[in-house]
């Protein structure tokens, strides 16, 4: 391989500015974490609600939730990102459309968070549904028999156990949200992948750039994994087999 390695490139200044390439990567890292964590909040919230609705006896709500899941699960994330950015603003009422296109603050960031959050919510909804359905029906009956309303039964009886049961797949999902945030580069969010490309073009040291970004993604996902393992340990139910180690 005839490549001129230069690991010192990160400390060199970029062509048109004061910062170093390392500064670019740090900025990218910050945006990646910001997009991933914000999307995760939306995903957990919407996924929890939609997954729950899919298990309720109310047919209309369950149908709505099923549509939600199918919609966000059957279209590639990259295409969804482009749809949210280029197509959805055109479909809005005229004034709102103009505002979104011209004045909305942090337009790329907001769009990416919304898109990634909703995409992930469909996956989490399926996990929540599986978790709820894995519980014996007697639990629901016991909750109702004690005088809880259906929402109370979910709140106090069903969901606390369902979420404990699905921590392992949720862990994968939390790691995915960091990795999937890279798709946001397609609409111009200045996250890691975007910065790596920019550094490649600016410095012609693409290999170093992409290797550095690889390591940073790895670290993100790794921390996410360890964080979830900690939560799993903390929320373990004494004497309960399914979550026992």
């Amino acid at each position, binding site marked *: 391989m005839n490549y001129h390695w230069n690991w010192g490139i990160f400390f060199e200044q970029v062509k048109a500015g004061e910062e170093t390439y390392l500064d670019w990567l740090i900025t990218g890292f910050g945006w990646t974490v910001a997009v991933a964590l914000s999307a995760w909040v939306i995903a957990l919230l919407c996924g929890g609600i939609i997954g729950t609705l899919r298990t309720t006896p109310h047919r209309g709500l369950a149908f709505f939730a099923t549509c939600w899941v199918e919609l966000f699960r059957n279209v590639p994330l990259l295409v969804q990102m482009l749809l949210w950015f280029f197509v959805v603003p055109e479909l809005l009422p005229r004034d709102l459309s103009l505002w979104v296109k011209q004045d909305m603050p942090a337009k790329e960031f907001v769009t990416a968070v919304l898109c990634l959050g909703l995409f992930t919510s469909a996956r989490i909804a399926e996990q929540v549904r599986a978790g709820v359905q894995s519980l014996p029906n*007697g639990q629901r009956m016991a909750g109702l028999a004690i005088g809880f309303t259906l929402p109370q039964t979910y709140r106090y009886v069903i969901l606390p156990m369902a979420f404990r049961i699905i921590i392992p797949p949720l862990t994968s999902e939390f790691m995915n949200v960091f990795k999937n945030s890279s798709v946001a580069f397609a609409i111009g969010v200045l996250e890691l992948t975007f910065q790596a490309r920019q550094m490649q073009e600016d410095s012609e040291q693409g290999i170093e750039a992409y290797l550095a970004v690889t390591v940073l993604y790895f670290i993100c996902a790794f921390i996410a994994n360890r964080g979830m393992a900690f939560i799993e340990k903390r929320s373990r139910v004494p004497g309960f087999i399914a979550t026992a180690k």
Partner: protein
Amino acid sequence: MIEINNVSKWYGQFQVLTDCSTQITKGDVVVVCGPSGSGKSTLIKCVNGLEAFQQGAIAVNGTSVGDPKTNLPKLRAHVGMVFQHFELFPHMSITENLAIGQTKVLGRSKEEAHERGLKLLDRVGLRSQADKFPGQLSGGQQQRVAIARALAMDPICMLFDEPTSALDPEMINEVLDVMVELANEGMTMMVVSHEMGFARKVADRVIFMDHGHIVEDATKEEFFGTPRSERAQQFLSKILSH
């Protein structure tokens, strides 16, 4: 206290309950028995509206269960229910299991609910297990906690759905003892069970069900003396022969 009038229920095309009628007056203990699939568990779940029925009427303390206008959670809060598989809430400690209904449904303070829970644990002999979790108790202990949880709501009557059939033989008596005590105190009880010893000891009436019909509805003396239906005689001879 509990009035069941001409109740029929279908799962799709399949009829699980056919024209069931009976009454349970205040203070009565009624044991419902019958072969598996006879509809006895389904019937008892209809009493507090956990299962819907398509025909007939059930009233608990004068409140119609099938009426869509009935506030079912409110009604259920005062009808204690004990399940075959205990159904304690596994993520809550024993005291939390006993307190949650009291605080969230009856609106009692945490302290009051805690106190009441401990008193009931004393009563079922499990005070020492108060801070454990359901998964750390034996089946018999869990079922006693489940009874205490139902009692914590100050029920006007108690429904037992095969309370001992998931238990090891040596744990059955500890649960039955609690139930006998309850019966002797005058609690109105509807008990789906095959424990004929329990029925002999405390039941006022025995109902025998088969294929969704109430075949026999007799006083304990009549039932164990000369059950009128051939099906009930067969059933009794099978479960009493050992």
